[in-house]
């Protein structure tokens, strides 16, 4: 027969400060865990959202980022003429040969950051379905005009519509802002490739991104491109290419989250052990009564584990509650794999909240185990005698 | 002038909205070297009176003086310092610290003095000798019998050579033989060492050991 839950609730209520402190301590651990994971998830999802599975990005062979790539004009023309490249209704290839450079801009609030400046052609907005202009207008071909991704608007001087940003010996007028579904594109500056090319490195593109006519045919497309002796290139699915750039930092953040939350958890578990031992000794007479009434030791064990889980659940919920305001806060860092500044938002997902609560429950159960065993093993006579003294 | 003078002492408690008068307008004198037994049923205010004398509680009205000290006039800090030199307290439940040995328990009041370690040792061993427990110095309370525990508690009460010893039902938790030993010991302290003792009890055997007996009942003190 199970011991009524009301015993636990009453016990928890009898020691409100102790219970609350233990739960709050666990809550802070859960908060740190969720916050770190939300940071890691936010960064990763920004880069994962950048690429599409229907697109192919072509870079110089051996280049693991666009920065160190280079493609001649002819190479780009050869590829865009190939039959597997999707086309617009009026027959133009859905492809964007792009200039990719990093410009050093001063952050508002101090310090330089390397911001990606990407020279695109007008088809880029069709190649990438998730990109749309949210303020102002598209740049005019031939004009020194640029678009700014919404995540860096307000982080650097001159990023407002109508503002002016200087780089490469020229002044560029911001004519619009664009959104890109929270992806890393939102941390970029976009201009026309034909304008950027002479301003930066001369007659060379860094990458070519195109839509596949049949996205299932990627392997054969890749084979065709990489085997072509005229083309010194590597082809990647766009999705994989950008997702791979998140690997290093995601790994570091996940490692940090595990390391920090793990060590904090040790402290919190010890706290739970103390609290539960105190609960067990405070209720020695009650346990004696339960055992003499015929409740089984296993029931006592379960009852105390349940109580520990209850405190942990409270802590987990508090931690989740504290972490909610973090959701959506935008922060930025340099992605060392691409050397570029990436702004991204903390992502506190329901799944992460559940993991936080799960984490709390594990802490509670681990912390409650030995005290619960002690309670269950308590000899009836001893428990009763302790009762008279207490 | 008496060693201990109680004048017009009153104690009123407030419990919820009710005022409860423990006693009102009590006068009492105890001469130096006296062994006074105060009797009364439980709840009559005996313990309250002892606490007031020791300065552990504040009276509603009235004054208490012990020797030159005006107990009712002192600040908490002065009271603590005064207690450490002039009051020895003995409890019904001995109240030894379970984590300390008999020796260490007796040494506790001496830690508050400027005595050196070796001087403290000398004092502690002397009083343990007097209470007949020098061979038990390194035992913990749980290794002692009730009577032995109370004798250690008595040693602790007298080790700093206090002006007055206050005992609150010291035999209340003891069997007849142990109680007899404890009372004999207190008589010796009074007779041999000239200690002034105020003993509160409702044990008739205890009452017989004092020089004088007074009764406290329904807030009234009678000789």
């Amino acid at each position, binding site marked *: 027969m199970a011991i009524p839950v009301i015993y636990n609730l009453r016990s928890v209520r009898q020691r409100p*400060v102790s219970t609350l*402190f233990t739960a*709050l*301590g666990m809550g802070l651990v859960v908060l740190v865990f969720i916050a770190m994971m939300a*940071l890691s998830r936010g960064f990763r999802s920004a880069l994962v959202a950048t690429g599409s599975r229907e697109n192919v990005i072509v870079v110089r062979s*051996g280049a693991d980022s666009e920065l*160190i790539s280079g493609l001649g004009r002819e190479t780009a023309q050869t590829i865009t003429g190939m039959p597997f490249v999707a086309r617009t209704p009026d027959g133009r290839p859905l492809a964007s040969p792009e200039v990719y*450079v*990093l*410009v*050093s801009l001063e952050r508002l609030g*101090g*310090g*330089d*950051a*390397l911001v990606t400046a990407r020279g695109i052609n007008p088809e880029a907005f069709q190649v990438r379905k998730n990109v749309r202009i949210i303020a102002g207008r598209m740049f005019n071909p031939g004009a020194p005009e640029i678009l700014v991704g919404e995540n860096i608007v307000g982080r650097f001087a001159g990023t407002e519509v109508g503002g002016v940003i200087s*780089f*490469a*010996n020229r002044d560029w007028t911001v004519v619009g802002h664009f959104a890109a579904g929270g992806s890393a594109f939102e941390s970029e500056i976009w201009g026309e490739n034909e304008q950027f090319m002479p301003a*930066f490195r001369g007659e060379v593109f860094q990458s070519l991104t195109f839509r596949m006519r049949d996205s299932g045919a990627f392997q054969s497309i890749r084979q065709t491109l990489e085997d072509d002796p005229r083309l010194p290139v590597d082809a990647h699915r766009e999705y994989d290419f950008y997702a791979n750039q998140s690997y*290093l930092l995601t790994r*570091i953040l996940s490692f940090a989250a595990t390391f*920090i939350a793990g*060590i*904090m958890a*040790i*402290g*919190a578990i*010890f*706290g739970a052990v*103390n*609290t539960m*031992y*105190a609960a067990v000794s405070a209720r020695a007479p009650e346990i004696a009564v339960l055992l003499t009434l015929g409740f089984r030791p296993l029931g006592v064990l379960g009852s105390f584990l349940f109580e520990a889980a209850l405190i942990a659940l409270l802590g987990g919920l508090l931690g989740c509650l504290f972490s909610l305001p973090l959701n959506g806060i935008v922060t930025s860092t*340099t992605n060392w794999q691409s050397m570029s*500044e990436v702004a991204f938002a903390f992502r506190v997902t329901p799944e992460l909240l559940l993991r936080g609560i799960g984490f709390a429950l594990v802490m509670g159960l681990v912390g409650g185990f030995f005290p619960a065993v002690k309670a269950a093993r308590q000899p009836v006579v001893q428990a009763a005698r302790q009762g008279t003294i207490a | 002038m008496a060693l201990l003078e109680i004048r017009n002492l009153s104690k009123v408690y407030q419990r919820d909205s009710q005022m409860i008068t423990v006693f009102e307008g009590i006068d009492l004198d105890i001469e130096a070297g006296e062994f006074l037994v105060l009797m009364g049923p439980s709840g009559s205010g005996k*313990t309250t009176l002892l*606490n007031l004398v*020791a300065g*552990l509680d504040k009276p509603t009205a009235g004054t208490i003086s012990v020797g030159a000290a005006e107990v009712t006039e002192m600040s*908490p*800090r002065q009271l*603590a*310092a*005064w*207690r*450490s*030199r002039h*009051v020895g*307290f003995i409890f*019904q*439940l001995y109240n030894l*610290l379970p*984590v300390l040995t008999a020796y*260490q328990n007796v040494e506790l*009041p001496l*830690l*508050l003095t400027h005595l050196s*370690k070796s001087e403290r040792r000398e004092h502690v061993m002397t009083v343990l000798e007097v209470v007949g427990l020098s061979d038990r110095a390194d035992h913990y309370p749980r290794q002692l019998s009730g009577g032995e525990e109370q004798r250690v508690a008595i040693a*602790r009460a007298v080790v700093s050579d206090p002006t007055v010893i206050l005992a609150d039902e010291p035999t209340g938790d003891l069997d007849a033989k142990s109680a007899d030993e404890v009372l004999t010991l207190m008589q010796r302290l009074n007779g041999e060492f000239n200690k002034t003792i105020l003993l509160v009890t409702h044990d008739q055997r205890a009452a017989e050991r004092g020089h004088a007996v007074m009764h406290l009942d329904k807030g009234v003190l009678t000789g």
Partner: protein
Amino acid sequence: MKYARLVWVNMTRNKRRTVLTTLSVAAALFLFVSLRSVNTTLADAREVGSESRMVTRHAISIVFYLPESYYQWLVTVPGVRSVSWADWFNGIYRDPRDFFPNFAVEAESYLAMYPEMVIPEDQKRAFLDERTAALVGSGLMERFGWTLGQAIQLRSPIWAPDREWPFTIRAVYTPTNPSFGDALFFFHYDYLYEGTSRRAQPGWYVLEIEDPALAAAVAETIDEHYRNSQAATKTETERAFQTGIVTMYGNVGFLMNAIGLAVFFAILLLAANTMMMAARERTSEVAVLKTLGYSDRLLFALVLAEAASITLIGGLLGVFGAKLAFEGTGFQGLGLLPNFQVKWATATAGMAIALCLGLASGIVPAWQAARLPVAETLRRVG
């Protein structure tokens, strides 16, 4: 000190509880020291740069190269004593995870400009005389178990990605100042230049100036001179240049501090809870001590001393545990935190935090002990 035993017996009265609390404080301090050391390591990285050296890079950003021809003019700029240049090679040894910084430098002038690197004279000669020779930091030698004269190969995704670059380790340096780093790898720019069919160009120039006070004037002169050329420049002191790189990490400092604060409060709650439990169990003893003449102030101090002893012992374990653990494993944060070390200042700060934890967790129980009404407590117990 005569009260030490009283504090000690109270601590050891419930050994399990005290040990667990001590260990949880140790865990917290271990974490605090780790987080704090990330910040100090980053702060140190900014200090590496000298005020008497300057860096000239491409105005757009460091990823653009400068013409070799700039050297001829840069040496003539008033106030400039000598000029050298370098490139980021981005060489990979075995696996990208074995990351370490490696540079192609104009060796002779570069070594002359960096007295921070101490190199035995014969090794320096051997390095300068051989085109494929490498100069390696002592820490890096240790990390990979390299020996002098050993041949190793690097690959570079930037420079001629299809080939392996063989090097022979000819010299080992030890830094005069630990924050300079003992895990860097240098080789000859000439080797890079020839290996890339003469396509390589300087990534940045390093200038030694006669007087740090001239820095602003020198920067102005140089950047003005190249303003309208095909490669405009940006010149700043080496320290400013390093600071710029460190700020690219983003707000790591804030993140570390925020986590540190959460850790502090979590452990404070747990430690305070323990102290309150411990104090609650001995209210009657406190009352007894008061009847013996123990003053409120003394009892307050005794409880605080007990709490502080627990957290200070935990602090010692955590702080020095961290110091030993990181120094023993040579932790470098996957190469992103070179010269990671737990400084004595950090260890001291950790112990101060431990003390604060103790005082903060003990203050409520200590106050309760001091305020305890004796008569009432004794009546309740008796």
